[in-house]
């Protein structure tokens, strides 16, 4: 099943990925990471992720470290 | 941090960089040319707004080579002109400074030291004492170099730099460091305290009603060049005679004199105070003009003091000048560190104690 992996410690909370996701599966999380930022979380209860890697391609910080398709 | 009004009333709390910039404006600086570099970029930032507001010249130059040569161009017309920069970027100005000295132009340059060598880092440092006082330009030449010890002096010596540069037609540097550039202190600006120097006898203004004027460093014959150099060095001797400035604290009866320059001297003075409270006969000496260097006074002091300690945030630069002035009369020790914040007062006191005990 398509999905992504996020490295919370790398996320700088620019939130560019949120807009990018065609399915709006990325959300601002609650935790604060060591950079003092609130990293995003992948939230795909219905398994809608397309594995399109739009988010990872957009992410400036390689915080979305892996994208799987299929 | 807001930009200060050009001539603020009374005491104001201000960063060293802004103090320098605003002082330059008050001194009548007509042209600023600069390229950013930490820790002095605020100078150019302040100037960009203020000079335009006052309809004076400001250029965001493409490099420090360009900046300093723009200053030379402006100065050749008799204008008050300046640039400011830091360490590795001041290295790029060496050729032009050598030219400006040979061309006897009133260039004003503010150098705010950071850590070196190379890119180094942006922490305070005093590693460019050699660069300022000896330099890497070719041939025999000297700059006038003024080293402020606090933010008020950043202002006073910026005024003085414009004055001396024009009075002696010699490039003049204000040598500060990252700590001075970045810190705030209450200061007063007052008016530019010096008379305007008349440059009408040499400035380029177009050859109207007179023969052309040529400002150049090229000497077609070796003999011409020797004559010129002798004249130049006579000027330097005059400047040394007239313009040397220094600050002393409890040196009269001191067995040990601690010499330092710039922002390091604040800590030295404090350490001397503490040492005195402990009954140690210590004094502090601070050259304000580091070029010309207060050789004469140090020589005098070497008759009464038993030892000198030179302390700098570098691997030992001014210490050479002190040794040359003292000329072996008494020992001259060095206590420094490569780069970073100034040496702590406590450590200085320890060092003083260790030297007096010996």
């Amino acid at each position, binding site marked *: 099943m398509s999905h992504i992996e996020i490295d919370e410690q790398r996320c700088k909370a620019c939130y*560019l990925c949120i807009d990018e996701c065609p399915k709006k599966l990325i959300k601002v999380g609650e935790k604060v990471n060591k950079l003092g*930022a609130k990293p995003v979380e992948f939230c795909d209860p219905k398994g809608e992720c397309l594995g399109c890697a739009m988010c990872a*391609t957009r992410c400036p*910080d*390689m915080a979305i470290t892996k*994208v799987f398709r299929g | 941090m807001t930009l200060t009004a050009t001539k603020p009333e009374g005491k104001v709390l201000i960063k060293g960089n802004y103090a320098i910039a605003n002082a330059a404006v008050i001194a009548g600086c007509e042209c600023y040319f600069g390229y950013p570099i930490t820790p002095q970029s605020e100078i150019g*930032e302040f100037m*960009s707004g203020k000079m335009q507001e006052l309809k004076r010249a400001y250029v965001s130059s493409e490099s420090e080579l360009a900046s300093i040569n723009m200053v030379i161009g402006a100065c050749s017309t008799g204008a008050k002109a300046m640039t400011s920069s830091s360490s*590795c970027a001041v290295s790029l100005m060496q050729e032009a400074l050598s030219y400006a000295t040979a061309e006897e132009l009133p260039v004003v340059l503010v150098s705010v030291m950071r850590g070196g060598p190379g890119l180094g880092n942006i922490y305070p440092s005093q590693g460019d004492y050699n660069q300022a006082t000896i330099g890497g330009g070719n041939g025999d030449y000297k700059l006038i170099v003024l080293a402020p010890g606090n933010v008020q002096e950043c202002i006073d010596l910026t005024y003085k730099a414009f004055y001396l540069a024009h009075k002696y037609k010699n490039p003049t540097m204000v040598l500060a460091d990252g700590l001075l550039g970045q810190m705030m202190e209450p200061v007063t600006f007052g008016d530019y305290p010096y008379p305007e120097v008349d440059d009408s006898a040499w400035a380029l203004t177009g050859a109207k009603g007179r023969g052309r004027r040529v400002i150049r460093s090229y000497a077609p014959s070796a003999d011409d060049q020797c004559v010129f150099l002798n004249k130049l060095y006579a000027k330097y001797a005059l400047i040394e005679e007239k313009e040397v400035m220094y600050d002393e604290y409890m040196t009269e009866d001191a067995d040990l004199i601690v010499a330092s320059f710039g922002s390091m001297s604040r800590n030295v003075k404090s350490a001397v105070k503490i040492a005195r409270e402990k009954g140690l006969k210590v004094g502090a000496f601070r050259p304000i003009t580091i070029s010309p260097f207060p050789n004469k006074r140090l020589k005098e002091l070497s008759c009464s003091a038993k030892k000198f300690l030179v302390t700098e945030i570098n691997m030992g630069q001014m210490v050479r000048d002190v040794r040359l002035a003292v000329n072996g009369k008494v020992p001259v020790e060095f206590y420094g560190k490569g780069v970073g914040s100034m040496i702590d007062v406590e450590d200085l006191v320890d060092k003083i104690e260790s030297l007096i005990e010996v």
Partner: protein
Amino acid sequence: MATQVFKVPDSIIKDMTYGFCPGCDHGVAIRLVAECLDELGLKENAITATSIGCSVCLYDYLDVDSVEAPHGRALAEATGIKRARPDKFVFTYQGDGDFASIGLGESTHAALRGENITAICINNTTYGMTGGQLGPTTLLGQVTTTSPTGRNVEYYGYPIRIAEHIALCEGTAYSARVSLDSVANIRKAKQAIKKAFEYQLKGLGFSFVEILSTCPTNWHMTPQKAHDRVRDDMMKVFVPGVYKDVLQKV
């Protein structure tokens, strides 16, 4: 079975975190460079001369040999490297200030000489590292710390169109401008970088990619707004495209 369609490139140093500000496209550009190094198998044969600017810590991100050049001199150093070791893959990654302000002489002459190296230049219309001063690419009207009322022609003159200047040099094999404003353009940017790298591998001469990029911090914009600005303002003045391609009439 799910197949992995994205990963952190091998040419990126393990477990590093960029020192860039949130939303800064330096991060994207470096990743694209790393992906191209990966795909062309260049990591172990590459040497880079790093520049001074927000990219100065490139050596903390990219797992390749590197030497730090003084501000503006990356292409002189790269020339030295390539001439000494013509079998190595040599590239620079520079800011627009480094490349086109203080380093314009070195940059142009490397192109004129047709040095067989690749230069990537990040155009973010400001000197990022020193706090957002006006640089050689600052747009007319743009407010920076040294153009507090906006860039006016009277005091500051005009921005430089870097890719066009480099395209004019006869030693240039490839000169392109790309943008990182959108995912589609990021993908195009990668193709341009890859082509530039390939041209070096083919020994065709100087290859160059100018990358339109964000500096949210110094633009005082959110990452989102910053990307809108790239699209709405920058791309109008700095039009993306291929300005020279020796293998293809442009």
